[in-house]
């Protein structure tokens, strides 16, 4: 009987909170708030906050055309696999003191799991056979390479700080990082973690592929790049994945730097997490979107491997020598 109950409980985690339903609602709301904020910063009214929901359902109502030169199975399955992988990543990130499955995965695993949605977009685009998709996947891959080094440095800096406090050397487990912050206060209050936090804020738009790092799906240059041949429901799933990725990365930031005791009530913790994600989206995604022009792909690479990596490296060195 208890097995049935815990199986149902885990199924609830996967499907409702912090799984599929939470990701869907929260991710789309974040996306809508982002568009609204950008519009306000550009002194216009902007679309309603629920606009991404309208976009998604509209796309579900469109006809899906599979181009003749595409392989149908990959074309249709790739978006679903990417979505499933993103939901799984979200399950591994603790919500303050509540962790659904986060004892199971550490940050290195999440680092690798984040590659799966990116691979699903790349393979979906490659499967369509369009030359725009070819250029798009090349740029997407270079963007991923660019974001990987600073992300690794940030994670190592956090791991060393928490690990030296706990005495285990390097601590990659997210639940341990959450427990540490519950006891000693959020990591962002440490001066040595500030450069890493700034670096992570800059990594977020790069990982999600938001402006100004969206060379991979530049509408005006390469006709939407990887998604050029997608239409209808698969396209809707990709847009949904994009929105959920925003949620995942901002909640990862919260888990790493803004963790703490929380209120103890899961529902309230979820709402606080969402509000923090909104603030982070405003700062790292909307603000940067509104004030910049699109960077070229080699500029993206140089930016991440010099400036952002430099910031993260400062934090890592400070953490290593115990400052």
């Amino acid at each position, binding site marked *: 009987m208890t097995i049935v109950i815990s199986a149902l409980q885990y199924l609830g985690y996967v499907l409702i909170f912090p799984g599929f339903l939470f990701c869907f609602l929260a991710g789309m709301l974040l996306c809508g708030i982002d568009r609204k904020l950008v519009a306000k910063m550009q002194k216009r009214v902007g679309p309603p906050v629920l606009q991404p929901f309208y*976009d998604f*359902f509209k796309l579900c109502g469109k006809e899906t055309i599979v181009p003749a030169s595409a392989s149908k199975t990959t074309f249709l399955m790739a978006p679903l696999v990417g979505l499933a992988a993103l939901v799984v990543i979200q399950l591994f990130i603790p919500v303050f003191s509540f962790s659904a499955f986060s004892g199971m995965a550490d940050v290195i695993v999440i680092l690798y799991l984040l590659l799966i949605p990116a691979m699903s977009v790349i393979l979906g685009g490659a499967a369509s056979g369009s030359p725009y998709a070819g250029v798009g996947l090349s740029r997407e891959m270079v963007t991923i390479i660019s974001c990987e080094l600073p992300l690794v440095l940030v994670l190592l800096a956090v791991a060393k700080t928490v690990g030296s406090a706990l005495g285990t050397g390097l601590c990659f487990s997210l639940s341990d990082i959450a427990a540490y912050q519950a006891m000693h206060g959020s990591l962002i209050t440490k001066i040595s973690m500030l450069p890493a936090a700034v670096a992570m804020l800059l990594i977020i738009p790069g990982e999600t592929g938001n402006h100004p790092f969206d060379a991979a799906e530049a509408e005006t240059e390469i006709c939407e790049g990887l*998604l050029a041949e997608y239409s209808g429901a698969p396209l809707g799933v990709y847009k949904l994945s994009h929105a959920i990725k925003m949620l995942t990365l901002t909640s990862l930031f919260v888990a790493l730097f803004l963790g703490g005791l929380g209120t103890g009530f899961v529902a309230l913790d979820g709402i606080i997490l969402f509000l923090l994600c909104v603030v982070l989206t405003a700062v790292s995604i909307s603000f940067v979107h509104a004030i910049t022009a699109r960077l070229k792909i080699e500029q993206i690479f140089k930016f991440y491997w010099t400036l952002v990596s430099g910031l993260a490296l400062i934090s890592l060195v400070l953490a290593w020598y115990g400052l």
Partner: protein
Amino acid sequence: MFKKLIQESMGKSPWLFHINAGSCNGCDIELVSVLTPRYDAERLGFKLAGSPRHADIVVVTGPVTKQSLPRVLRAISQVPEPRCIVTMGSCPQSGNVFRGSYSVAGPLSKYVHVDVDVAGCAPKPEAVIDGLALATQILKEKRGQMK
């Protein structure tokens, strides 16, 4: 169960694809300015898409020249259903001053079914928004009639 929701959403999130069929660019500039902060068509959900596969409404400007005709038709055929074709300006509607020229292939309605004509040379942005809103209504009806 979701049919009503989908139909409602179809009217709230129309994505545009713009084709220049030999236009003098006046209407194109007016279309882009409709999407800018002063007139802000994005509050109605309009977005410029980069690929016809992402589009719902196709906006065609310019008298359809003989050279651009096959390309226009090919791009329009690649737009998934339900779709709505809007001609902007009087050039695609009647040819305007270019009517009868050796290089103009005639009004667009000779080749595809046009849903909305926005007249003017160039039409005012308010007229463009009006025409696009009407196209959105037609789009909703088409979605309702689909299987």
